[in-house]
């Protein structure tokens, strides 16, 4: 068996593996599901320039055929044995995998919108998540559950982010710009549809994000309302009524809509949390893995020989994930070099 182990076959795990293989280092890549590509496969296009996500995934097309890569699909790791040198990973099916070093690229999961019951996800059919909308965009076919073209859509920002009531006080960073991207794409597909975005404040942190936001207003006539949604209800004709407060004018607001898109935030995956809990790895206050420090050791863990790549340590965009994965690969390489001497 090969020595370097990477857990997680999303883009972080793929990028780490790619770089290590490039350096001639053999890698065991472990994926719990049956397909590579992780959460990125759910997206049609990427902000801010609408690059098709398949283009990014395509970079890893030839990776599985590399003879130095041992690919373990449908394999869920349960525990790490720290008493052996190198460490040994044990899978649910009883496979033992040596790991020196181990790179954790277990990614994120989106917030379970059902926990925000008042928004009506899982209760009213017209309420969907941004992940479901992205699938519709991918198929160029946006309709309400009753097969009708929605005449008015409301995007709700910060669902499961910046919300102490659901236990997540942090900002997921990517949902604001994703909402704008999706709103523009929706408008391109359905030019007659009215689109409203309900936000707390817009965090346009990227170099070109602000332009996209202005464009959304000027060219696509997307309307932005500063205020949080308070609750959703349903009319007899299955249309939705949303209650919110417009905090710019300081008044309560009621609006009818055909569809509600919940911009679900990023959370540490249940797998990451369980894995960390059972193996004594350090978890930060927000549930993500805790790197050694926030400045020059963001890919290192508190334990010797264990590294993090990608969104296992917190919300990141695709570009940031790839860069962070490269940093993790570099840390792993220098760790191996230090060991040789």
């Amino acid at each position, binding site marked *: 068996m090969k020595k370097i182990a990477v857990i997680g076959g999303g883009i972080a795990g793929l990028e780490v593996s790619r770089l290590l293989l490039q350096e001639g280092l053999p890698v065991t890549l472990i994926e719990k599901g049956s397909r590579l590509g992780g959460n990125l496969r759910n997206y049609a296009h990427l902000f801010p320039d609408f690059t098709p996500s398949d283009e990014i995934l395509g970079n890893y097309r030839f990776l599985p055929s590399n003879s130095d890569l041992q690919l373990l699909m449908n394999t869920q790791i349960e525990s790490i044995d720290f008493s052996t040198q190198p460490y040994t990973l044990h899978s649910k099916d009883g496979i033992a995998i040596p790991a020196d070093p181990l790179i954790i690229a277990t990614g994120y999961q989106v917030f*379970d919108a059902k*926990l925000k*019951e*008042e928004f*009506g996800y899982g*209760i009213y059919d017209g309420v969907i998540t941004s992940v479901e909308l992205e699938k519709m965009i991918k198929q160029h076919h946006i309709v309400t559950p009753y097969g009708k073209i929605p005449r008015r859509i409301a995007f709700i920002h910060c669902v499961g982010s910046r919300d*102490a*009531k*659901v*236990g997540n*006080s942090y900002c997921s960073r990517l949902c604001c710009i994703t909402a704008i991207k999706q709103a523009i794409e929706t408008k391109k597909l359905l030019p007659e549809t009215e689109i409203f975005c309900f936000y707390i404040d817009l965090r346009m942190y990227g170099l070109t994000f602000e332009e996209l936001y202005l464009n959304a207003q000027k060219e696509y006539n997307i309307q932005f309302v500063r205020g949080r949604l308070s*609750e959703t*209800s349903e009319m007899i004709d299955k249309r939705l009524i949303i209650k919110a407060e417009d905090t710019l004018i300081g008044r*309560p607001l009621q609006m009818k809509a055909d569809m509600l898109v919940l911009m679900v935030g990023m959370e540490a995956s*249940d797998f990451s949390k369980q894995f960390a809990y059972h193996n004594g790895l350090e978890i930060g*206050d927000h549930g993500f893995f805790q790197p050694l420090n926030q400045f020059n050791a963001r890919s290192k863990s508190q334990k010797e020989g264990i590294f993090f790549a990608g969104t296992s340590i917190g919300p990141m965009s695709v570009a940031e994930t790839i860069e962070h994965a490269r940093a993790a690969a570099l840390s792993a390489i220098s760790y191996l070099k230090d060991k040789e001497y």
Partner: protein
Amino acid sequence: MIREPNFQYPFLIGTIFLFAYLIVRIILWYIELSKYDKLRFIHFWKTKSVWAALKDAIADGLLHSSIFKKNLLLGYMHMSLAFGWFLLIVIGHLEVMVDRRSLNFPFYYAVFYRYYQPHPDFAGARVFGALMDLLLLIILSGVALAILKRIKKQIFGMKRTTKLKPFDKIALTSLWLIFPLRLLAESLSAAYYHNGSFMSNTLGAWFIQNVRVSAIYDLSWWLYSCSIGFFFIALPFSRYMHIPTEIVFIFLRHAGIMPKKYWNSYAQIQMYSCSRCGICLDACQLYEAGVSNVQSVYFLQYIRNNENVDKSLFGCLICGRCQEACPVHINLNDLRTALRIKASKPLTFSYGYTQMALQQKTDIIYFAGCMTHLTPPIKFSMARIFNFLGEKVWYMDEDKSICCGGPLMLAGQYDSASQLIQKNTELIMASGAKTLILSCPICYKAFREDYVLPGISIKFHAVYLNDMIRQGRLPKINLGFKTIYHDPCALGRGSKIYDEPRYVIDSYSQRMRLKKEKAEALCCGAGLGGINLPIETKNKVTFEAMTYFARFKPNVLITACPLCKKTFARDRRIPVIDIAELTARAIDEYVNEQKKSVREARLIES
């Protein structure tokens, strides 16, 4: 032979100071009570409640029966010190009365009796002597245990004891010293005159052989007197003020005096009644979550010492676990709320929107409340139940909702809360309703305690559901779940509703019994009182509570509070539903079965 010594003066000064202080204090407290409370207190002496108060004063103030329930050793420690000392004083005086056959003697004679009476030869002197030695021995065992408790608290069933302030330590030491010094002085007396009993005579015999008794004899009595005098002077300024105050508190409580929304002398009496025993520390879930300065014992200590209380005042979930655990029965939640109201600046929000709600005529009102609006399945389930029962109900806050005022009250916003309360009261009274049904315990508590709604029965949904099951209007059906019931704080400890929800759940599922339930139920961690608590702390409380439930491996966790439901649901280890949802599911199941049996009956016919 009675010599005239001077060592009684420290004791006399201490005693006179203490009694003068207490009399002035109690008069001031009484004057500050409201007019009605004064009337209540005067009337109280004509009622039988006096006997109940007396019984409680003995049971709690002297015997410490509540502490016995927590731990036998801890109870014995408190009882030996309090009741032992009490008996020592009473029997000491009896002894002097019997000896002198008179009631006329200086009250300090009994305290130093072994000095004044070297040759007790009255009838029963030996019995008294033995009794006094025995009592002193019991007290000394209590002191020994108290010292042991500071070193090894686990033996007493406590995980934590209170951190003491320097002044309290001095008072504590002077209290602990009284009894060994008394033993020393009496033993030295016995060394000369053999006027003690089994303990002091034995020790005296040892002293006469090994120590030059004449050199330390007077000194020992001086020290004994000084230790009592010092303790009495320190008492009003230390935690031992709880000893006299608790008795006052017990009598006021039995007189029917209730805590108010503002800080008054009754609140102050309760504050002084805290003995800082530290039993509340173990009850507090925040301790496990890493918060160790907001617990009731410290919070009361901060107010007494006029320290900044902002953090401990608003950094508490007001779950009431400490109040249930408190052996003195202090109304800790009410004290905190009263202080929050005192500490809060009025809000400048406009409640103009409250004018918009419409009035309706109805028999039954259902008030869902904000939190039920945020958990729509509970609201739908209530609608399903009302439909099944064929009740016509006014969903009072369906569209334009007004808050019940409970959360504002918990935040100390009395004036704002009162505005909402007034508006809701107008709406409810104008509807002509007989029953008001609530599905949120926070609303229920607010309506019960802060509203005046004559002629209207305020019912929590679980109680209403239980009534309907009892009357046969709702079906009993086993859904085949293994369930756990979680008592919401505002419903259980807050409103003392423990049984009805359990009857309802037992009608539909197999409910498991827990150790931490009813008054000892855990808080979900999202109590609306926890205004200043960081989210991480609350999450830890939730996690620990859920970990406790998960041990029982139930299929479903049932609660009767939308806030608890929402909080526990986040954890995802166990599915969580409200008691209304359980009932609605049972109704659906029942209706389906009815339909099935009708269909089968038709099939047989055809």
